[in-house]
């Protein structure tokens, strides 16, 4: 078991492409992460600061409406606000198409896979109004630029991001003895949601060495972090609980001047905690290699994490350099986003198939089928994101939806489908199973032949 270009493209990239050669070494795969992010420019997704301007405008219209009740001006503002929501919904659908086009045409597919992995590890989403559409901009701004440096930087970028503060209720959490809580007429208090998920999901893991007291103390330490539509992230010291907090036996804060530096300090310590190294390194191996990764592979990644204080680029290198990364005995099943993305890449669907975006067509070709496969785009049920276990995806309705998409969607995306007898080799490489080669040739129509190849376990596993 050692580096193999085809497996590299399938397992760590977005699948084989008829137009783009697979990487010829682990070094080449890693070099993808240092290359300029040209594909992001070709198929843009709005940054969060840009996206926030939509929230600002929405708030402005709401204010106009509130201040002019019963007037034509209020009615115009109501319509304008609704229009803003519609445009955001339409644009979010276009961003989904751009994610798929990035996967289809990128020279650096490992970057796309990592952006999805980390966006999922740090799941955040809007809960009401226009911010409902903010997930892709969050990933574009907080995750994508921070995937190869230290985990601390990524952790801080994600946990302090306005969308995360909104999603896990931090924006509205007040230190019980903070000046803002004491002078407020409304009851103001602590919300421990973000603190709990940072320990349980983002860093130590649920089996990690923390207690309810640590959750509570971390929640108190987090007070002060908030988000405002007009400015985005804000540290409001009036919301911060006075005094020091003890998290995992170490004291933070406690100066007269609460500061975001205290939050950053605890996150930096959490990022290098051995339990964090074990939890997150293992999750990487499970996501990219197998539900039951070689323990020695995981151990090598943990070791590298601890040697480098969580330098992610070198942790990826430790994974790719280990023979366990190339083990084919228990391959993963692709998640729906990876399945559809790799199908688009195998077909090399042209950009205009998904642009200019016809919202309804995109919904029918991408969003709805993914939902039936079990993945409602950017709407996982909870902050733990999407399931890693293959058994969560290989269900009757999941397999039915994949098969249905495979035989019906490609022809809507491409004017001319490839000959299935050629496609089976370009999509699966020279080791396409004989049964799949037979089926590709035996299909009655091109769409059926292409669909059967895509639906084969050989294509659906990585």
């Amino acid at each position, binding site marked *: 078991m050692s580096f193999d270009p085809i497996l590299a493209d399938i397992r760590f990239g977005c699948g084989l492409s008829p137009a783009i050669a697979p990487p010829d070494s682990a070094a080449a795969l890693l070099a993808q992460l240092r290359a300029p992010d040209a594909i992001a420019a070709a198929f843009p997704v709005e940054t969060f600061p840009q996206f926030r301007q939509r929230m600002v405008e929405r708030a402005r219209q709401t204010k106009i409406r509130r201040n002019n009740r019963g007037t034509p001006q209020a009615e115009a503002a109501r319509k304008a606000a609704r229009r803003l929501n519609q445009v955001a919904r339409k644009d979010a659908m276009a961003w989904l198409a751009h994610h798929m086009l990035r996967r289809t045409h990128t020279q650096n597919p490992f970057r796309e896979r990592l952006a999805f992995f980390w966006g999922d590890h740090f799941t955040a989403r809007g809960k009401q109004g226009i911010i409902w559409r903010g997930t892709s901009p969050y990933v574009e701004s907080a995750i994508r630029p921070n995937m190869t440096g230290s985990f601390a930087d990524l952790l801080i970028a994600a946990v302090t991001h306005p969308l995360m503060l909104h999603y896990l209720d931090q924006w509205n959490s007040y230190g019980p003895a903070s000046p803002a809580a004491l002078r407020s007429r409304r009851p103001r208090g602590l*919300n421990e949601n973000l603190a709990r998920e940072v320990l349980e999901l983002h860093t130590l893991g649920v089996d990690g060495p923390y207690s309810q007291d640590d959750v509570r103390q971390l929640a108190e330490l987090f007070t002060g972090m908030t988000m405002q539509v007009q400015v985005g992230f804000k540290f409001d010291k009036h919301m911060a609980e006075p005094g020091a907090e003890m998290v995992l036996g170490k004291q933070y804060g406690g100066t007269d001047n609460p500061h975001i530096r205290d939050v950053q300090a605890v996150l930096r310590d959490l990022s290098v905690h051995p339990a964090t190294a074990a939890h997150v390194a293992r999750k990487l191996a499970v996501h990219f290699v197998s539900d039951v990764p070689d323990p020695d592979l995981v151990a090598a990644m943990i070791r590298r994490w601890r040697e480098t204080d969580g330098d992610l680029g070198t942790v990826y290198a430790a994974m790719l350099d280990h023979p366990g990364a190339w083990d084919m005995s228990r391959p993963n099943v692709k998640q729906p986003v990876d399945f559809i993305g790799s199908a688009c890449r195998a077909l090399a669907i042209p950009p205009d198939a998904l642009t200019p975006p016809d919202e309804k067509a995109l919904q029918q070709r991408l969003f709805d089928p993914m939902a039936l496969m079990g993945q409602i785009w950017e709407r996982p049920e909870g902050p733990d994101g999407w399931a890693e276990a293959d058994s969560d995806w290989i269900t009757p309705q999941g397999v039915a939806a994949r098969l249905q998409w495979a035989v*019906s969607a490609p022809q809507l995306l491409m004017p001319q489908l490839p000959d299935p007898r050629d496609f089976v080799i370009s999509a699966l490489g020279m080791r396409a199973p004989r049964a799949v080669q037979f089926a590709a040739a035996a299909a009655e129509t091109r769409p059926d032949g292409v669909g059967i190849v895509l639906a084969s376990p050989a294509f659906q596993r990585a």
Partner: protein
Amino acid sequence: MTLTRRRFLTRSALLGCSAAASPLITPMAFASAPWDNRLVVIILRGGMDGLAVVRPYGDPDFAGLRGDYAPGATEGPADLDGYFALHPSLRPLMPMWQAGHLGFVHAVSTPYRDKRSHFDGQDLLEAGTGSLGDGRDGWLNRLLQTVPGAEAETAYAIGRDTMAVLSGPAPVSSWAPDSDLALSPQAMRLAELVMSEDPAFAAALAQAYDLAGSDGDAVETAPEMMGGMSENMIRTQASGTEGMARFAAERLRGDARIAAFSLNGWDTHNMQARGLARALGTLSQTLLTLQDGLGGPVWKKTTVIAMTEFGRTARINGTGGTDHGTAGAMVMAGGALRGGRVIADWPGLAQADLYQNRDLRPTRDMRAHAAWVMRGLFGLDRATLERKVFPDLDMGADPGLLL
């Protein structure tokens, strides 16, 4: 369920005629149910706030924690028994309550304590074990393992969520009523061929094919297939909880005896008046749909248990919501139920009565109530329930949940 290739080919060949969509003529529809009674388990994911749903307005400390929630005759909370009142959003269920087909168990929990994680809490609730890591089967699956004659058709996991409560070695069926399969017979045969070497895919496809023909939105017939592909073929059906409840009722009227699905939206950290009303509206609609779909005679044999991973904090938090807590309430319904009661060994809400000074104190393991229901419905002996289905459970005294 394993479907032999031969059977699969038979069924594929039938696809060309529209009658193939009917489950009645397929060789899969054999009646085999081990008992006549029905059980529906609903997992309320997110942590339902039992104190807001079944409100102990008779407790002198309740108003201090939650405000003045005096019941009203026609609006606001509905009085249940002079001590507890029902959340206004469940008022549509009052006829069910009055008929004795709706009941509640209060101040109960799983054995899960203190970390208050949704995911661990749900894992433990569905595993039915005393602590995490004691195995990955769900308790409904272990129930099926004890029953000779249980087929995959006996139990259904419904909807897009994974139902860990039903997973395990005993075969079960699962289906999202909004899935569909529309393929030519040849494509279906080839799909079966390419998946045949991969047992997980092969089993899932076989089951999907079986279900797609019987969930009300028929498998497309061959002539339509030849007419070219339409956008319709990849379009989803309207999803939703009502579809799940309808599908559950339909299967339970047939050979199925157990159905499980989940209702989400209970994690009300923020401004919970709004979110909770929405979630309860869905719960109410689901129970009414089940009652309606099952119809009188089958409803009479049915018990519905709705349970959640934990309750929420006794106090309202700083953002008009509640945080993860410990004990909560369990909702029960069905014509087999001796309802019209709130069963509770009420622990009180005074500061000193709260668990860890913050949560409603658990007074009993809710697995005991589920076990007593299964004992009544399925005639399982106590040793099986206490050792196999819910390991290390002490069922305690019979709460007399069923008629």
